[in-house]
């Protein structure tokens, strides 16, 4: 599901650089056209999601039994769905659910995964072994099955789908954080901090964490892309967003019966998912390149 390529950590080097590493990274990011396009598209969707009630012509849950499954026209630019709701409006409102699902589930994964990874990487020994074996076990189980089981257990709803996806995405961040921590903790500045007598938690939070943030940022961006697809998959199986609230995945779920009669019901949400996920992927790849210290 997710790519686990590790980007090397960027050491904080405050006295010899002419421009700060963050500036340098930003400059390189801006130069990557793909990432910029991705960022623009994401910004567009976020804007649409936030301004949804003001930019859409119809009410997303208002049914109209006379205009069921109408083809795209001047009145309904994306056509109507199986109970007569405007597809364009639902796609825009659906951005809220899908974007939230992507961001919040990965936020959950970060909140649980990063501390666990820090502990495992820094403490080592038995704690590390325990956490690592558990992480390996979770990664070995097919992600979708875990997500389905969790979502079914928690009860079908968008919130629970986010929790389910978040939990199943956690092992990736545990493993990534742990790897980064282990690479960084042997660096000079960490040794120095320890020699000075800093408590372990301070070293972890102040010295180690900032240096592994770039790698986490890259992975988080790419994982959000995968999480949006995962939400679509869960909603497709009926385990996500509950009717009548729209989400792109649940719209695809309803659309599958009407692919021959009303293909627009599937095309627009599908394209929306594609555009958003592709943008997150491009952005993530761009970030990785920009933060890669090997590049000039």
């Amino acid at each position: 599901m997710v790519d686990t390529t590790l980007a090397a950590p960027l050491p904080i080097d405050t006295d010899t650089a002419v421009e700060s590493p963050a500036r340098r990274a930003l400059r390189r990011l801006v130069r990557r056209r793909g990432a910029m396009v991705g960022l623009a598209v994401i910004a567009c969707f976020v804007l649409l999601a936030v301004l949804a009630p003001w930019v859409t012509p119809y009410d997303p849950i208002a049914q109209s039994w006379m205009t069921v499954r109408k083809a795209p026209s001047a009145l309904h630019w994306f056509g109507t769905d199986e109970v007569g709701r405007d597809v364009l409006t639902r796609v825009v409102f659906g951005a809220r659910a899908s974007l939230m699902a992507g961001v919040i589930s990965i936020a959950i994964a970060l909140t649980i995964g990063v501390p666990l990874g820090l502990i495992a990487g820094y403490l080592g020994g038995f704690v590390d072994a325990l956490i690592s074996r558990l992480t390996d076990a979770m990664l070995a189980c097919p992600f979708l099955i875990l997500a389905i089981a969790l979502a079914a257990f928690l009860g079908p709803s968008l919130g629970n789908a986010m929790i389910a996806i978040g939990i199943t995405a956690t092992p990736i961040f545990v493993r990534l954080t742990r790897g980064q921590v282990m690479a960084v903790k042997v660096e000079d500045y960490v040794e120095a901090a320890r020699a000075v007598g800093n408590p372990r938690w301070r070293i972890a939070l102040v010295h180690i964490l900032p240096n592994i943030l770039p790698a986490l940022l890259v992975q988080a961006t790419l994982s959000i892309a995968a999480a949006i697809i995962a939400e679509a998959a869960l909603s497709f199986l009926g385990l996500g967003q509950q009717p009548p609230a729209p989400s792109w995945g649940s719209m695809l779920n309803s659309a599958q019966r009407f692919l021959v009669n009303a293909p627009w019901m599937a095309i627009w949400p599908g394209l929306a998912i594609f555009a958003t996920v592709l943008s997150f992927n491009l952005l993530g790849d761009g970030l990785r390149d920009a933060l890669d210290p090997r590049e000039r």
Partner: protein
Amino acid sequence: MKIVKLALSALIIVAACTAAQAQSTLRIGLAEDPDVLDPTLARTYVGRIVFASICDKLFDIDEKLNIVPQLALGYETSPDGKQVTIKLRPDVKFQDGEKLDAEAAKFSLERHLNMTGSFRKPELAAVDHVEIVDPLTIRLVLKAPFSPLIAQLTDRAGMMVSPKAAKEASDKFGLKPVCAGPYKLVERVQQDRIVVEKFADYWDKDNVHIDRIIYLPITDATVRLANLQSGGLDLIERLAATDIPAVHGDAKLKLANPVGLAYLGITMNLANGEAANSPLGKDKRVRQAFEAAIDRDAINQVAFNGEFMPGNQWINPENPYYQKSLPVPKRDLAKAKALLKEAGVTLPLTVDYMVPRGTENQQVAELVQAMAGEAGFDVKVRVTEFATSLNESETGRYQAYQIAWSGRIDPDGNIYSFDKCKAPLNVSHICDKEVDAWLDQARLTDKLAERKAIYEKVARKALDEENIIYLYHQRILVAYAAKLTGYKQVPDGIVRVVGISLK
């Protein structure tokens, strides 16, 4: 594009013809993979479709739901209703060469009654024991009169198995079933296909014209239809109602669409746990308001292109037991609002509306949500996995539960287990001693007029109490290639394979 399509089709046809021997094969697309192919242990609807080719039963039904002979020639019920004598058809062989006689019939029925894990036990619960009268006659002695019994014998409970094969295989019989149907099982790959071939010594072999049948489970209805359209299948079951225009528009396809035995209804929680302590559960006027707010015709139109049949009783309006004195009501929003006002309910009234996942189910649920919303109900649709919804319904964690029932030939099968006190399917926990008495009474006689009169009393009470709001009856939608001739669809949805041929 058209020329390319034609050329490709021609190539494929030529290739197929040269590849095929003189053997004719019928390819049937099923909506699910059947479970175990043992008539005693089977429990899925789709399994019955496969059984139609491999296992004959004592009786069968025709398109008008009349009971007709199959392995049995006829039956006689004693005046007290406690003894049913059945005459068997002579010269019938099982697929392993064994004879069907009274011994074999007794063995089969006792297997259904006594085997561990038998799902036929509840169906034959009325039978006390089976006696042999002569080599071709058996007598079922009942604990109490039970008129729906013969209807049970037109399904799996009436399927006869070869005693020799069953004794040898015991509970592994389903892997290589040996019955007395027109085809015998030759191959089964789970979730892939079931292949059956003509049984040369079938008792009605002159009417079997197709050499081989292959059943292919394809869960997605769109894909199933695509296969039929491309020629990969010859017949599919459970066509989606919204795909009917596609079938009508294709000259190579035909559609069979009798109204089925099933219904979809909304079960209300009357007394099952905490959730029943709401105006919806306690006051029948609120439930009547809910029903009045629903526009059955609109649901039928929007969700099913008008193809299904709105209903308000547990049997469909074309059934002889349907009470014409209680016709399907039209939507009456004013009445709904008035009833709610009369009941003194503070609006909006929240309703926990549970619906098993499935795109058709969900669409209907959303329509109900919008309709009831106009009367003042705040319907919270909760799409639940089917397995979970069963659990929730039994433990009372719901207020309204939209669920279908596949339907039985005898009207008793559609009402007894739901409305009788403490019956297994009575998840609304309705309990009315009067209704219970009537339901039992209707089982004592097999005369239509008498039973109908009893059921009229039940219908009046049930429709007043609204423990189940019946919405509509689905049509059996079977689409098949025009080259398949002689196909007649019986309202139980089973694909019968005798008397059909491929041109």
